[in-house]
């Protein structure tokens, strides 16, 4: 193995698979798909820091599942190449679903290891407001969560909040906390200043996210906001019973600590002036802070309030007193819910939400609707508001009519019918309008240089407005209020676009993400069954008692306790294996880790090919009577090989499940071999490796060993002597065909048929080793097709001739070595490999090779240029040139498929033309055959 890694003539392509083979002997064109290793082999020194910090433990296939390894791993201690690799199947659905590109699996995996500080830094890498999205997120991640296919999605938001709250509680020590990680504080690196200045208008999630990203890229950024507080809509639009602000304020402060400048109470209405003041680029992220009403009679009476000004009063700690008032909130979205739940907290005696769609279809979050109802808000769904009734200059109610909802039409318009005769009046002293938000665009330059869209501000795909260097992100881009994650996502995108604007080709590109991993329901179940995720159900979010929610704005939802967070994190099925927490990136001194590595394709030409694709072990679980996988201490031989290996999971100690060494061991031959139900053939190597295992057990454990064999096949050089030595050691040999293994008291009872006269037919032992046979690789069929070779009846690759061409295949220049051709032991595999190498060398050293000239030829007078032959040719040997088929004389193998396909009989095969074939048939039929033979 080591010699291969160091050999100057061997180019080792690990993590690679053959994508296609074309061409012909001497000139095979090979395309190899190189799967990303995510670790640069040329930089990795194999130190293992990445594995130390990696939080993901999975079953170790090298130890046959008897131990675990990390997602950042090395195949084995003696691996060649020695570089580590990251086991990443792709990106998890939770990450793919999140507009902020939050790697939820990463911090969930870190929480699972109780590394809360690391988890916090992992969140903050993409998300500057963990406390916010740990509370008020729309949770696209949970909707996408694979766990939801089996029971309920992982409570990702709850875990995020737990981490955010934990970090806030430990905020003083946090900058120096890195848990098990071996690097210093995060975000420590000082980027090279670019000398560029950026102004951001609006200190909401979009603006602050972009500002932070730009500062991390080395730009100087100043953020302006008209409000007295930073945070935008999340600070003046989400009431404190859902989002306490001290954590948000702390998170904003962290953004400022990283170098973002902030100027509050400043209304910017001279964007061109900003550029004159030396800003190279401007980001407009002013949000959508204008609440709208619907035009119905009575809407202009002062008893009509607007949602956002009302919520702003609540959020800034100066709520109005609504004692004894009957409040009607018009609207069925989340803003309406915020208004209604705020109203009941400040004394409203009655509170109704009036909205057009039925309750089940409203846009507000379902879980919050339930809480609002619990708190005393009445949902008046399927109700159209027609008029605000004013009597004696006071609002007294809302005139309504019932509706019937029919979804949306093809153009996206809502289909609602009002039901005649259902008019009624809902009493109200005060109406709060929460029927949508828009943008105040009065600050834009009057010359129209920044073009508006139907709603909001127009931009190109790179977030730039019609004015060069002026960018837009967040709600003001879309024209209405969206979710926090959407704004953060747009902030990230805008920052990348602005960086490219400012630095040209050096600017950071849009990320190219690996494919998303989609687990099926059964895969999720299997993951749970294998113990990779706990079987427990979703931990719900607890709330404070109802009676404590009035006359104050105490936060209603409680954070998960540490125990709950751990339970919940344990439910993650780790779709992508690697959690992408990026701890390894921080831990690698050599900068060898690149999580954005892409799959690549390498192409080269070779003269000869040797297939040495090996075999797979027979799965003993296919024989139910053996109870493999059901009873403890029944091991397959490959598993036992790991157990006895000094570098294995027990450092070579052979132990039972109870930790004690076995006193007796049975070794069963022919498991899956010489059995008409599974494989008829003899796997050849098992008798001898069983004898070897007997010797090892005898030598290392001193246990009694019983071998139950069908026929002892010790046919090789020195093999019979090896058998005799084993027998002399005192190993017991019993002839028999094993019937069953069953738990019997504290032992395993192995019972067999066909025992010799006078010999036992069962034995009770502590441990059983199953000498499992060899089977063709699962993808042997596909590989055979790819290389144009045939397979034997049992699925192994077929040699050209069992005696005269044992390493050759029917494809010239393609040879076989090892167990891909048939079960073999190591000496035979090595010998055959030497033979295959010699055959390949002999061919290559000829310099040229002669190919049979019986190939297809085209009569161009007859060829209609239809191209059917081109489609039919299995060797891609035919091209259409000037509407005529042309055969590549080197690629053509003379199979004749094209000739059979050609409708105009333009293609013939040399020496197989009609004239010759007819003559041959006339000859064959010129004799008189006996009647029964014809």
């Amino acid at each position, binding site marked *: *193995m080591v010699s*291969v890694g160091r*050999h100057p003539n*061997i*180019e080792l392509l*690990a*993590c690679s698979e*053959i994508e296609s083979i074309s061409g012909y*002997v*001497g*000139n095979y064109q090979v395309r*190899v798909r190189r799967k990303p290793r995510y670790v640069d082999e040329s930089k990795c020194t194999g130190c293992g820091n990445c594995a130390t910090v990696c939080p993901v433990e999975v079953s170790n296939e090298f130890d046959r599942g008897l131990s675990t390894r990390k997602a950042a791993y090395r*195949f*084995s201690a*003696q*691996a*060649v*190449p020695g570089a580590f690799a990251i086991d990443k199947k792709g990106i998890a659905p939770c990450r793919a679903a999140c507009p902020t590109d939050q790697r939820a699996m990463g911090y969930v995996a870190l929480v699972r290891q109780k590394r809360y500080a690391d988890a916090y830094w992992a969140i903050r890498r993409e998300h500057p407001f963990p406390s916010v999205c740990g509370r008020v997120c729309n949770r696209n991640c949970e909707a996408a969560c694979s766990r939801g296919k089996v029971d309920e999605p992982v409570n990702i938001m709850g875990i995020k909040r737990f981490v955010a709250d934990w970090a806030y509680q430990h905020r003083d020590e946090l900058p120096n906390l890195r848990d098990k990680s071996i690097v210093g504080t995060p975000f420590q690196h000082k980027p090279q200043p670019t000398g560029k200045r950026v102004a951001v208008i609006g200190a909401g999630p979009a603006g602050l996210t972009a500002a932070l990203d730009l500062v991390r890229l080395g730009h100087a950024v100043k953020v302006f906001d008209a409000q007295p507080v930073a945070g935008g809509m999340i600070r003046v639009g989400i009431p404190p019973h859902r989002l306490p602000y001290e954590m948000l304020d702390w998170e904003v402060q962290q953004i400022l600590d990283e170098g973002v400048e902030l100027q509050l109470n400043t209304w910017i209405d001279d964007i061109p002036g900003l550029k004159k003041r030396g800003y190279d680029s401007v980001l407009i992220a002013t949000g959508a802070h204008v609440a709208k009403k619907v035009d119905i009679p009575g809407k202009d009476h002062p008893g009509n309030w607007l949602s956002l000004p009302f919520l702003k009063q609540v959020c800034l700690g100066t709520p109005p007193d609504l004692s004894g008032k009957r409040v009607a909130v018009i609207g069925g979205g989340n803003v309406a819910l915020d208004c209604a739940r705020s109203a009941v907290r400040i004394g409203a005696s009655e509170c109704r939400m009036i909205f057009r769609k039925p309750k089940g279809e409203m846009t507000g979050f379902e879980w919050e609707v339930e809480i609002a109802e619990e708190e005393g808000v009445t949902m008046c769904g399927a109700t159209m508001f027609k008029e605000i009734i004013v009597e004696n200059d006071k609002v007294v109610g809302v005139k309504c009519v019932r509706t019937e909802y029919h979804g949306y039409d093809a153009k996206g318009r809502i289909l609602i019918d009002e039901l005649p005769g259902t008019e009624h009046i809902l009493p109200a002293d005060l109406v709060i309008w929460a029927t949508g938000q828009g943008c105040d665009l009065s600050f834009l330059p009057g010359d129209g240089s920044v073009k508006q869209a139907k709603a909001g501000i127009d931009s190109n795909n790179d977030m730039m407005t019609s004015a060069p260097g002026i960018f837009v992100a967040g709600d003001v881009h879309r024209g209405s209020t969206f979710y926090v994650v959407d704004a953060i996502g747009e902030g990230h995108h805008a920052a990348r676009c602005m960086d490219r604007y400012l630095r040209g080709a050096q600017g950071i590109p849009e990320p190219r993400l690996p494919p998303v991993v989609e687990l099926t329901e059964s895969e999720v179940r299997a993951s749970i069954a294998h113990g990779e995720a706990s079987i427990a159900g979703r931990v719900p979010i607890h709330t404070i008692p109802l009676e404590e929610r009035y006359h104050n704005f105490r936060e209603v939802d409680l954070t998960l306790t540490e125990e709950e967070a751990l339970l919940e994190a344990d439910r993650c099925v780790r779709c992508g294996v690697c959690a992408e927490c990026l701890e390894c990136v921080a831990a690698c001194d050599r900068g060898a880790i690149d999580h954005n590595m892409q799959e690549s394709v390498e192409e080269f030409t070779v003269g000869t*090919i*040797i*297939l*040495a*694709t*090996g075999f797979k072990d027979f799965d003993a679980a296919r024989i139910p009577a053996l109870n493999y996988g059901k009873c403890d201490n029944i091991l397959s031989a*490959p598993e036992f090989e790991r157990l006895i*290996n*000094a570098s294995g999971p027990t450092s070579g100690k052979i132990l039972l499940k109870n930790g004690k060494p076995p006193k007796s061991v049975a070794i069963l031959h022919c498991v899956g071999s010489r059995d008409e139900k599974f494989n008829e053939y003899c796997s050849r190597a098992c008798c*001898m*490796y069983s004898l*070897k295992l007997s*010797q*090892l057990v005898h030598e290392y454990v001193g246990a009694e060993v019983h071998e139950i064999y069908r026929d002892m096949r010790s046919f090789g*050089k020195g*093999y019979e002597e*090896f058998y005799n030595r084993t027998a002399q050691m005192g190993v017991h040999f019993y002839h028999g065909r094993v019937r069953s293994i069953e738990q019997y008291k504290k032992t395993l009872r192995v019972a067999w048929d066909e025992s010799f006269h006078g010999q036992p037919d069962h034995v009770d032992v502590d441990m059983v080793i199953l000498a499992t046979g060899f089977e063709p690789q699962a993808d042997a069929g596909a590989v055979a097709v790819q290389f144009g070779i045939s397979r034997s009846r049992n699925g192994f690759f077929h040699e050209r001739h069992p005696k005269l061409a044992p390493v050759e295949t029917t494809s010239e220049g393609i040879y076989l*070595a090892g*167990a891909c051709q048939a079960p073999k*032991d190591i000496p035979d*595999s*090595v010998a055959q490999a030497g033979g295959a*190498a010699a055959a*390949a*060398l002999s061919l*290559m050293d000829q*310099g*040229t*090779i*002669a*190919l*049979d*000239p019986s190939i297809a030829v085209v009569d161009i007078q007859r060829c209609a240029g239809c191209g059917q032959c081109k489609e039919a040719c299995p060797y891609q040997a035919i091209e259409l040139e000037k509407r005529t088929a042309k055969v590549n004389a*080197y690629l053509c193998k003379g199979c004749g498929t094209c000739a059979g396909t050609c409708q105009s009989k333009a293609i013939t095969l040399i*020496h197989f033309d009609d004239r010759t074939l007819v*003559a*041959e048939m006339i*000859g064959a039929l*010129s*004799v*008189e*055959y006996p009647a029964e033979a014809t």
Partner: protein
Amino acid sequence: MNLAKIKTGVYVCHCGTNIAATVDVGAVAEFARGLDGVVLARDYTYMCSDPGQDLIKQDIKEHGLNRVVVASCSPLMHELTFRRACSDGGLNPFFVQMANIREHCSWVVDDRQDATTKAKGLVAAAIQRVHYHQPLDMRQVQMTPTALVVGGGIAGIEAALKLADSGKHVYLVERESSIGGHMAQLYKTFPTLDCSA
């Protein structure tokens, strides 16, 4: 096709008793002699042997044969042998046609008479078709002195090292992140009980 110019030599092989025990080889040769274009037909114990091949070479020279039919085993076995013999005798090797009267006849037909009849049919077919053969040249292609080894287990490693040691550039493609395969997972291996890695 001018039959007058065709001079076919037919050789019926005994293959020891492999063919001769079931097929009346003499009768087949006799039958062949009567067919169009055939100037001579012989039966012989082992056509693939040196004396057997020499027969063909001599006859080409002495009788001016321009077509050769060998009724013996599968062409997979000896087509190349007889093509070479023809070439050595001065005839384009693609004027040889083999009739497989062993695998397709003597080994699968029990009755001697039936087998003989079938052998005659196969020989007649070969004689008829070889009339229309043309002189052909083998296609010569350049050989890239580079090899691909698929799979990095013990067999792949051994083959790659052998090729590389003789100076060839080798691409060794492995699906896993390391080579080693099953072998790397084993402890001690028989019959010597030495370390496997």
